[in-house]
């Protein structure tokens, strides 16, 4: 079938059926990470460092071991001794181990030091208080700029990757530099150059379900693990490495997952539960508290950024330059490269240059958070573009249209763009009534574009037909936001069977080949592509059975509306043979009919969005509210439009929290001051307006139906769009996130003082 034929005339794609797991999710019977039980199960708890940075001189577990109900205690000695640190990301498994359980040094407030398994959760927590740890506190640093200064304490020597220029502080673990053209010449051509400094605080993914797992590991090296994760094959691989297991002997099942947003791509507690289970020879359940989630799992990086852009009076950008410093916690891996590469991607630039620094501090290891790095970069870049438009009296949408990247543009990060939909999102934003709606006094409007790469990744899918012609589809990517529905729709489209006849399951690690983590907005793209290919594989086999029955060549049969039919008049005259007629006899006609697909799809297709925001600021208190919000984003092709809208809305809401109220607050002592939802202020229902959405569809040439991932791009524009709206409403440029009321009042007073 030609690619173009598949872009239209869909029967299932684009419809909005109920999700297959809807009933489970509204009745409380869906089983999430903490909902599993096993007979003889122990409960575990983790002891965590109260210090930001401290040498662990001694751990005495003897009193805890003697406590009632305690069955096992583990420390670093109970994990593999064969991993070694290495520069950059080469020692990643060692880094993960070091994060999962501290070695000789506690590197941040909340760093795991020891763990207990006991007969009840209370007994385990009580036993933690009996473990005596002798710490020698060390100097600490939690701020990214301070961590790069000459006098900053060194988190760990020898981490810097080979790409890091000489002479930088040892805390600089990674370095990225890219661009093209001559920025100095470009700035010389400009009528106006704006350069500014921006700061964003670390924010947490804030999934409502804390990390949880149930582990069983025997002395025979065989294990079973149930956990909430965005990637159970990765959990399998990492746990095997940290515990000296054979990968295939550890079977990992992904539970339902209560949100991830990148934060559940990392491994934290699973190896600990397995180590405890091995030692106690009983199943062990380990569930994090909310405070543990905040103190010890991945927030995103905080940043310090400098952005400089030159523009002509007509709005043409002549040059752009950015320096992005990312605080990544006590380990290498902050997405400084992603941040730099995304920063100017929406614009077709002759002269562009970007630098990213990955900087270590005494904070938890940063983890991916929805388009890691891109939202912060957009905050800096799109704020400067807004300022240029203000000063030159230009329309912000027209100016972005004038400079927008399109098919064939050499991207700021190097490659040439294929077919992309930025211009279409800008045009749809311009046509949207929101853009021209009148504002009330005290309100301001902001817009921003955003970009994310999207990702394909290793993917395996298997599909089995039942005798009655119904379908079992096994995918390896956890369903975080309705992906069972989109998979079933794509399978139904190929097979021509009713959507309800398809049962989609998330297979465990023993049932499919390796599936990469659900990240990079890859699920609908990659598992979807694999589902289509697996279904096509099954169709081919169905056609072969029909061909055999009819006694004609296999290529003389085609598949239409769930039936095998002769491919043309020359093939012969046979009535359509429905799927159930073929499957009913499949045992006798060659055996079970299955389809499968395993590959690493490379055509994910980048995605762009444009957001419009109206905000209102109370000048006496600095309180901000978002009064209207519109998301316009290119989805390539929306498989289930309702869930696409949901991704758009969710990204915008998280962006609103990040822009206005969410932040990691560290005290002078280097300890996290707000490890609860009480003071880590994510948006509540009464904080938000309805979030309007416009789905733009510019098909991705790399997917049979044109799908582009939609999950991450939606969080790229909000920080900047809201900052531009708040700056307009308050009448003062806001350069630091979150734009909390004290910061807004401070900025207003400073401006009044300057004026």
């Amino acid at each position, binding site marked *: 079938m030609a690619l173009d034929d598949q872009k239209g005339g869909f029967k299932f794609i684009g419809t909005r059926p109920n*999700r297959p797991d809807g009933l489970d999710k*509204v009745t409380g019977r869906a089983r999430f990470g*903490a909902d599993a039980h096993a007979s003889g199960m122990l409960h575990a708890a983790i002891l965590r460092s109260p210090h930001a940075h401290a040498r662990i001189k001694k751990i005495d577990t003897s009193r805890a071991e003697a406590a009632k109900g305690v069955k096992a205690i583990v420390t670093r000695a109970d994990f593999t001794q064969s991993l070694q640190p290495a520069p950059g990301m080469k020692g990643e498994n060692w880094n993960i181990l070091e994060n999962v359980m501290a070695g000789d040094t506690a590197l941040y407030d909340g760093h795991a030091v020891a763990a207990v398994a006991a007969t009840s959760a209370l007994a385990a927590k009580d036993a933690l208080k009996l473990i005596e740890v002798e710490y020698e506190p060390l100097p600490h640093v939690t701020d990214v700029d301070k961590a790069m200064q000459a006098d900053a304490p060194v988190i760990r020597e020898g981490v810097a990757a080979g790409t890091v220029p000489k002479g930088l502080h040892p805390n600089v673990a990674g370095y990225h530099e890219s661009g093209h053209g001559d920025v100095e010449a470009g700035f010389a051509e400009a009528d106006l150059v704006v350069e500014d400094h921006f700061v964003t605080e670390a924010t947490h993914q804030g999934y409502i379900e804390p990390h949880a797992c149930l582990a069983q590991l025997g002395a025979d090296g065989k294990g079973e693990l149930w956990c909430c994760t965005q990637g159970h094959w990765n959990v399998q691989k990492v746990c095997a490495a940290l515990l000296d297991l054979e990968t295939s002997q550890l079977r990992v099942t992904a539970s339902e997952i*209560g949100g991830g947003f990148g934060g559940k791509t990392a491994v934290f507690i699973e190896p600990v539960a397995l180590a405890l289970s091995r030692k106690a020879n009983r199943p062990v359940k380990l569930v994090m508290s*909310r405070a543990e989630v905040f103190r010890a799992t991945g927030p995103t990086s905080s940043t310090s950024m400098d952005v400089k852009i030159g523009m002509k009076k007509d709005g043409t950008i002549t040059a752009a330059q950015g320096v992005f410093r990312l605080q990544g916690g006590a380990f290498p891996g902050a997405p400084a490269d992603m941040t730099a590469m995304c920063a100017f991607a929406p614009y077709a630039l002759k002269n562009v240059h970007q630098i990213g620094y990955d900087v270590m501090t005494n904070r938890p290891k940063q983890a991916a958070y929805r388009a890691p790095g891109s939202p912060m970069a957009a905050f800096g870049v799109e704020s400067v573009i807004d300022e240029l438009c203000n000063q030159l009296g230009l329309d912000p949408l027209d100016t972005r249209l004038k400079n927008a990247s399109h098919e064939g543009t050499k991207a700021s990060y190097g490659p040439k763009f294929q077919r992309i939909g930025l211009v279409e999102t800008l045009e749809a934003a311009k046509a949207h009534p929101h853009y021209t709606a009148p504002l009330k006094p005290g309100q301001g409007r902001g817009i921003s574009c955003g970009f994310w790469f999207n990702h394909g990744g290793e993917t395996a899918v298997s599909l089995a037909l039942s005798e009655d012609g119904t379908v079992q589809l096994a995918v390896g990517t956890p369903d975080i936001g309705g992906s069972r529905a989109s998979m079933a729709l794509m399978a139904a489209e190929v097979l021509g069977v009713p959507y309800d006849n398809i049962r989609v399951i998330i297979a465990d690690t023993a049932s499919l080949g390796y599936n990469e983590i659900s990240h990079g907005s890859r699920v609908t793209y990659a598992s979807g592509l694999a589902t289509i290919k697996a279904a096509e594989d099954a169709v081919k086999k169905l056609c072969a059975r029909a061909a055999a029955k009819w006694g004609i060549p296999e290529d003389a049969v085609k598949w239409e509306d769930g039936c095998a039919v002769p491919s043309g008049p020359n093939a012969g005259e046979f009535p359509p043979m429905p799927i159930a007629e073929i499957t009913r006899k499949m045992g006798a006609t060659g055996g079970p009919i299955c389809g499968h697909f395993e590959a690493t799809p490379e055509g994910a297709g980048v995605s762009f969005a444009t957001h419009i925001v109206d905000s209102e600021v109370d000048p006496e208190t600095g309180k901000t509210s978002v009064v209207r919000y519109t998301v316009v984003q290119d989805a390539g092709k929306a498989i289930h439009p309702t869930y696409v809208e949901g991704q758009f809305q969710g990204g915008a809401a998280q962006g609103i929290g990040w822009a206005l109220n969410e932040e990691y607050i560290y005290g002078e002592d280097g300890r996290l001051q707000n490890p609860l939802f009480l003071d880590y202020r994510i948006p509540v229902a009464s904080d938000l307006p309805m*979030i309007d959405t416009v789905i733009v569809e510019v098909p991705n040439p790399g997917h049979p139906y044109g799908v582009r991932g939609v999950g991450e791009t939606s969080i790229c524009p909000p920080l900047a769009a809201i900052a531009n709206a708040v700056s307009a409403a308050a009448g003062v440029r806001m350069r630091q996130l979150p734009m909390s009321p004290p910061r807004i009042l401070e900025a207003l007073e400073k401006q009044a003082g300057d004026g």
Partner: protein
Amino acid sequence: MSMIHVNTKVNGDEAEFLCDPRETLLDVLRDQLNLTGSKEGCGTGDCGACSVTLDGRLVCSCLVLAVEAEGHEIGTVEGIAEGETLHPLQQKFIEYAALQCGICTPGILVAAKSLLEKNPDPTESEVRYWLAGNLCRCTGYDKIIRAVMDTAKDMREAS
């Protein structure tokens, strides 16, 4: 540690259990009564994922001690549907995709049902403030609010 014997009623059925006085109602619902529909998102009353009713009053079960349940009636998400028939809110949440990951959904359903019993015709603002103690990180609340509003409308029209 002496355990305390508690008699209570959950979703209309008699239930009894032994608990440590430090255990919360949520602990007992999940770990002893196997009603894992109520979720622990925070343990500090900030997220609402553990919402249940106590004698008809909406509360966080993480902020109620199990021993306090003695002689009282508890309602959980498992008791919302009547037999095979889903509550109109449950039906509407599926239809509107008012959930993505689904972890906050049980608490939101219990809370929304409690709202509609008290106020069958809430404004958008009333729904938003009533549900302010139920955190959802996936949806931006838009589809949740619409589902509650439209369920209220359907229920008013049906009655």
